[in-house]
């Protein structure tokens, strides 16, 4: 029964071509790249920063944006069937793992597979699989936690894992900084606690997460927007500049959540300014010799770029309502202003960090970092954050909509449909843009050229009415109403 159930659960959530592609990439990434090009024996160098940073990112994102790979039809049919709960939770956990945890194996599987000796490689691969299970489990567990508990847990776990960079061996990611024994024990213990909780939650979804989603509570907004006395264009900007919306498949760090939420842009701006001030102090003024904090200068724009591009590309249209917006005014005019207003709103996050990097450039931060072209790092980072990422987000949004990979959120917490290869393919250009961001970080001249080119392409896209009317028709044909 279990194999049949696993097959059913997987095929109702992921298309066969997508599963095939995932299997191929996994094999290629770990087996081929790991065995032929792996050089992960030095765990004290750049790999440590990369692996620890990425792990923290995945853990934090899973806790904050963790979601369930559950369909509306599961609620109505699958969960009502007389299935053994153990089988059900196992099948759903595997689906969760493929949908979220597996991303970790892609990102640094080849490093650990190619680690020095066979013994090291085996231990690190086990660590990686455990980490993937932990991230998967945290994504499930986060659904039963209130928002503030998720945030507190994310901060605590993030700080704990960060301490591994300072040489603390008792963290879940210490194996990646050379503390293989203690790191493995801690990671195993944490996984052994969280996975059973996640399995239990998946076994009784209708009594836990789904019931809380369906609870007939009416959430009242304390602060509301008013559109009285505003024309159509002002209304669009007023909406999107007042609140930042998180919605759609918030697919960051492998997490998947179909939620719709909004945060006041002013609040986001204040938090971002505070974070940028801390960042400026740490990278420009602090003198903790043990830490290479200047390395944050090129890393931060990459992480912020990933988050912004994914949020914009997959979230811009997820809460859009074609039957209202496209019938009220010309879809081209509407979408053009929608995109511009959303780009302006994301500058509330990116802007303070862009300004902080300009300050760092004046301070000469990075002069002694030894990377070469050091002075250009903060300037490049400022260009990336203020121009490249906002421009690229328009392009990314267009590509995702053009290939029909947008999923409209119609029911809170439920997958709107099966993941197919289009959603996978649509995300690839985003990685290309990330590559451009990395190149921009290294060469100031490249940064200027790439930022200019992306701005020109995005401007040309925005100007073309035909492009956006075509997107509106395409979205409608895909059932996006």
């Amino acid at each position, binding site marked *: 029964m279990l194999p049949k159930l696993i097959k059913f659960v997987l095929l109702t959530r992921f298309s066969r071509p997508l599963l095939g592609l995932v299997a191929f990439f996994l094999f290629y990434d770990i087996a081929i790249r790991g065995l032929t090009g792996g050089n992960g024996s030095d765990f004290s160098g750049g790999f440590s920063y990369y692996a620890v940073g990425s792990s923290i990112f995945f853990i934090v994102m899973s806790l904050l944006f963790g979601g369930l790979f559950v369909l509306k039809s599961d609620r109505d049919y699958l969960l009502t069937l007389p299935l053994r709960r153990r089988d059900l939770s196992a099948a759903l956990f595997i689906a969760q793992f493929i949908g979220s945890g597996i991303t970790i194996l892609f990102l640094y599987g080849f490093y650990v597979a190619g680690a020095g000796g066979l013994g090291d490689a085996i231990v690190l691969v086990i660590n990686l699989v455990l980490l993937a299970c932990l991230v998967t489990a945290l994504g499930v567990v986060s659904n039963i936690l209130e928002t503030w508990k998720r945030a507190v847990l994310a901060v605590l776990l993030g700080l704990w894992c960060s301490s591994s960079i300072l040489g603390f061996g008792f963290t879940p990611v210490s194996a990646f900084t050379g503390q293989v024994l203690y790191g493995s024990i801690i990671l195993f213990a944490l996984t052994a606690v969280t996975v059973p909780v996640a399995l239990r939650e998946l076994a009784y979804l209708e009594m836990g997460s789904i019931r809380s989603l369906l609870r007939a509570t009416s959430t009242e907004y304390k602060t509301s*927007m008013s559109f*009285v006395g505003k024309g159509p264009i002002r209304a669009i900007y007023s909406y999107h500049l007042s609140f930042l919306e998180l919605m759609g498949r918030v697919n960051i760090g492998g997490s998947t959540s179909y939620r719709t939420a909004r945060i006041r842009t002013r609040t986001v701006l204040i938090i971002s300014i505070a974070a940028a001030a801390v960042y400026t102090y740490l990278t420009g003024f602090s003198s903790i010799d043990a830490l290479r904090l200047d390395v944050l200068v090129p890393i931060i724009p990459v992480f912020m770029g990933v988050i912004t591009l994914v949020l914009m590309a997959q979230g811009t249209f997820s809460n859009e309502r074609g039957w209202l917006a496209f019938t*009220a005014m*010309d879809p081209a005019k509407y979408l053009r202003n929608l995109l511009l207003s959303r780009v302006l709103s994301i500058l509330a996050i990116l802007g303070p960090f862009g300004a902080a990097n300009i300050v760092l450039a004046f301070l000469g931060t990075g002069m002694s970092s030894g990377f070469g072209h050091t002075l250009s790092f903060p300037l490049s980072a400022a260009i990336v954050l203020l121009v490249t990422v906002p421009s690229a987000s328009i392009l990314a949004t267009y590509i995702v909509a053009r290939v029909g990979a947008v999923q409209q*959120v119609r029911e809170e917490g439920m997958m709107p449909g099966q993941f197919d290869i289009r959603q996978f393919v649509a995300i690839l250009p985003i990685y290309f843009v990330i590559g451009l961001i990395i190149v921009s970080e290294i060469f100031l001249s490249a940064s200027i050229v790439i930022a200019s080119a992306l701005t020109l392409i995005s401007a040309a896209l925005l100007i073309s009415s035909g492009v956006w009317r075509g997107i509106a028709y395409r979205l409608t044909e895909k059932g996006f109403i």
Partner: protein
Amino acid sequence: MGPCIDVQYVSKSYGKTVALDDVSFSIPCGERYALLGPNGAGKSTTLRLLVGLLKPDTGTIQIDGHEPFSPEAKSILGYLPEDATPYRTLSVRENLEYIAALRGVRDVASATNKFLDDLSLREYERAKVGKLSRGNMQKLAIALALIHNPKIVLLDEPLNYLDIPTQERVFKMLKSLDSTQIVSTHIMSIATRLTDKVLMIARGKIIWNGTIDALKSMEVGDEPIESVVARLMTGAS
């Protein structure tokens, strides 16, 4: 007076699936039509073409003499799709005000307040739409479709999810509108109460066009009107 809706030789396919095949019909201004047809007949596609959300592969559509996607047509069309969901992150009031502003309604506050009261949404005006019950969401969707007092109203199963008192209120509201209406429905009592004429569609083609009275006259003995419609849809004699 010319037709408010004029559809000539319109075809629309999704890939290899033909949704509408060389369809032509006209609806004079002020008339109320029920759009009937079995599942997958092409009813929703027809409404989406009329409202300019889709473009026909061939043929022409005129809304009061304008192309459906023109600003002139958009300003006089009101559309409610089946299972309509408003903006989930906005409150009820914000949804009404936002759409009224997008549509260029002069007095946004008055229009909003009118629908909050008429559809008993006042107590939910600050509530997040994503947390509303399906019935209240449908009431809001109806209000959003009508907030600009459209001259032409296209409704797809408007009474879905509504309780009986609200259904009666919506009946009254729609009957009081001075507009051309097309109501797509599977429920004959809705068709007979809201409309006078019927456009029947099956397998992408118009198969019958006439008055409700003409349809009733085809009843045999105690046969209900639903049986007549079923006969016509299935092609039975």
